């Protein structure tokens, strides 16, 4: 069967069998919960509680700190212990609210009350999403209410629900497809009620036939919704790649998906929208896959945000072997952590524990095989970009479209000389963007 896809990309062993058979287990946190203020892209949230305050499930503990920012909501009831800096998964430290769980799970008033979204205006729906603190749960963490509040006059034609889950190992979206497809469809219907002229597309990689069947079944005969199987290939779930595969529209680094008439939502995000709008449940939990060859029972947990990651590893049977590497997210784009003493946040889709670190320490000389060009989904020339980046020639780097890099890591993955292409390119890209920001501030 012909399946939609894109040019480039790599085929990686998906390793999803480790955890795909494990049903989602609800996890009750044992220790303190830590809510980081930087769980999203944009300005950090600003705490609105102080030590000693009692908070309830569903209570907002931090307000958005700017236009592109998101609120943070407590997932347990208890007393605020501290509002202080805490280490987060990327090794940085950020302001965080620590809550001591009293195990009562007392909720705020109106929590879980059903609402009829068809009676709500677009503004009310977007406000509900904003208050729930929903961000893109696929990994980037872009605040969803900002995504939905498009500039006036922008015509949105497609609402895309991204169920590609192209990263190896991760199975949280797959389990949600099997267990909560109805909710994702409801979430899509809610978003479609905001954009009256748009159609909704579920893009799901073809290695999840049961998931595709479930979502199709849940869509029923709704004419505005369709399910499109996509070829199994990394990075099929990248936002720009997804848009190109499904709509043939192309966006670059200077555009938002909305500029091409598209809005892309992760599968988990669509469920979070349904919970927030139709059931008045803010984003307090997310599905986390704990997997890898160093853990005893790879599983999928429905974990409260703020849970200490080491608790989840214990709940998954603990270590089978001492891991050499632990990754937050998938192996292609995730961040390696040096310690497990970090909290689950809104974008933590996976905790991957690897027995062996397979990264070759020393790269060799480039043999100019050109494989990095073949796999680049953005059709760039990684070998040349790396050379300009290593030479600190940022003007040339920009001229060669280095800023278009999406950081998928395909070039580094495929390189037979094991050169760190995407690493150099990402570093140069961040440098150029930071310089631009500085220049803009000066003006």
């Amino acid at each position, binding site marked *: 069967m012909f399946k939609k896809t894109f040019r480039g990309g790599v085929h990686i062993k998906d390793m999803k069998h480790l955890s795909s058979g494990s049903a989602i287990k609800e996890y009750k946190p044992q220790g303190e919960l830590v809510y980081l203020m930087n769980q999203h892209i944009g300005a950090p949230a600003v705490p609105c509680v102080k030590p000693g305050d009692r908070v309830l499930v569903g209570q907002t503990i931090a307000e958005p700190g700017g236009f592109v920012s998101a609120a943070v909501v407590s997932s347990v009831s208890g007393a605020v212990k501290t509002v202080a800096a805490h280490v987060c998964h990327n*090794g940085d430290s950020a302001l965080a609210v620590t809550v001591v769980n009293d195990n009562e799970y007392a909720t705020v008033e109106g929590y879980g009350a059903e609402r009829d979204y068809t009676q709500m205006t677009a503004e009310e729906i977007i406000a509900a999403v904003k208050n729930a603190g929903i961000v893109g749960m696929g990994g980037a963490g872009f605040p969803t209410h900002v995504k939905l509040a498009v500039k006036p006059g922008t015509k949105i034609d497609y609402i895309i629900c991204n169920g590609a889950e192209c990263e190896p190992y991760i199975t949280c979206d797959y389990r949600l497809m099997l267990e909560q497809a109805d909710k994702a469809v409801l979430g899509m219907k809610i978003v479609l009620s905001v954009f009256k002229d748009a159609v909704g597309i579920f893009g799901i990689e073809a290695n999840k036939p049961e998931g595709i069947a479930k979502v199709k079944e849940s869509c029923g005969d709704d004419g505005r919704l369709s399910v499109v199987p996509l070829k199994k290939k990394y990075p099929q779930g990248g936002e720009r790649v997804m848009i190109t595969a499904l709509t043939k529209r192309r966006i*670059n680094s200077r555009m938002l998906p909305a500029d091409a008439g598209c809005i892309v939502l992760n599968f988990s995000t669509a469920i979070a929208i349904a919970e927030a709008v139709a059931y008045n449940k803010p984003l307090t939990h997310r599905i986390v896959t704990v997997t890898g060859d160093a853990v005893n029972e790879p599983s999928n947990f429905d974990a409260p945000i703020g849970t200490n990651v080491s608790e989840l590893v214990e709940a998954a049977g603990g270590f089978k072997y001492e891991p050499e590497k632990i990754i937050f997210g998938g192996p292609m784009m995730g961040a390696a952590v040096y310690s497990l003493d970090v909290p689950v946040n809104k974008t933590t889709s996976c905790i991957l524990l690897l027995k062996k670190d397979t990264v070759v320490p020393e790269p060799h000389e480039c043999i100019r095989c*050109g494989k990095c060009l073949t796999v680049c989904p953005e059709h760039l020339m990684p070998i040349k970009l790396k050379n300009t980046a290593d030479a600190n020639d940022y003007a040339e780097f920009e001229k060669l479209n280095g800023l278009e890099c999406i950081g998928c890591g395909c070039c580094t*993955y*495929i390189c037979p000389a094991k050169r760190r292409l995407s690493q150099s390119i990402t570093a140069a890209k961040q440098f150029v963007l930071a310089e631009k920001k500085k220049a803009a501030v000066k003006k």
Partner: protein
Amino acid sequence: MKMLNVSISPHVRSSKTTTKIMLDVIIAMSPAMIFGYIYFGWRALLISVLSVASCVLTEFVYEKIMKLPVTIGDLSAVVTGLVLAMCLYSTAPWWIPIVGGVFAILVVKMLFGGIGQNFMNPALTARCFLILSFSRIMTDYPTVTDGITSATPLAAAAKGGFVSYTTLLFGNHSGSIGETSALAILIGAAYLIIRRVISPRIPLYVIGSTIVFVAVFTLMKGETPVTLNYLSVQIMGGGLLAGAVFMATDYTTSPVTKWGRTIYGIAVGLITAVIRCFGSPEGISFAIIMANLLTPMIEKLTYPKPLGTYGKKAEKK
């Protein structure tokens, strides 16, 4: 708990390595070389062994003297040695492959920085150096054991002679060690393409454009009629197939961009045809090293367009 390894993503790598790719090339070349040993006997084998040994040793000694990390483990010197042997005649004296190997590795490869840095194909450059320096010895081609043809098929065809297709396919005619059997080379090409070591783009454009240009030039000259047999000999009778599959596709000296490969393939074909029709009967090795020189420019001209810039439509919106 102890501190864990951290690194920037991606945290997984494909199993492909430079050594594995070079091993694939060696495997792909072996059918053609084995056919050569069958036709030309133990001398052909000796030439290959000397050539490979000379290349590997030169690289080893150079790196030892210059106190560089030894890179003979990546097998690229073995490939260079095999390619050089492939395009030598089995009648060459024993010192020819040794001189060629030293020249290829020392002058063409190592002095320019080693693997990935040379701008001309080392083996072919060495061959051209040998032809120009020792032209009498280098053009003294052998007759095969059963002595079907004395001249190479290309030379015969240039005079309007007919060469049987089985001879072309199995290669029991005179020529360089590894380039006589079209069948064996095609097996190697299929292996390389299936293993995704090379894309078929360069070989197809080289062969296709050579044929087109040879036909046009021959018609222009009007001396020999352009028949199917004439064109088949052009493809299979000389070094074109081996050159297109094993030498024009050399990673280091061919463009990496998609359209660059197309232009490069056509350039190789054009120069080959010019040499074959207006110069000596054989020209593929000179054509390839000349096109190698164009590679940086071709790459610059064919820099790929990123995903987001196709068509101005999306930009305007």
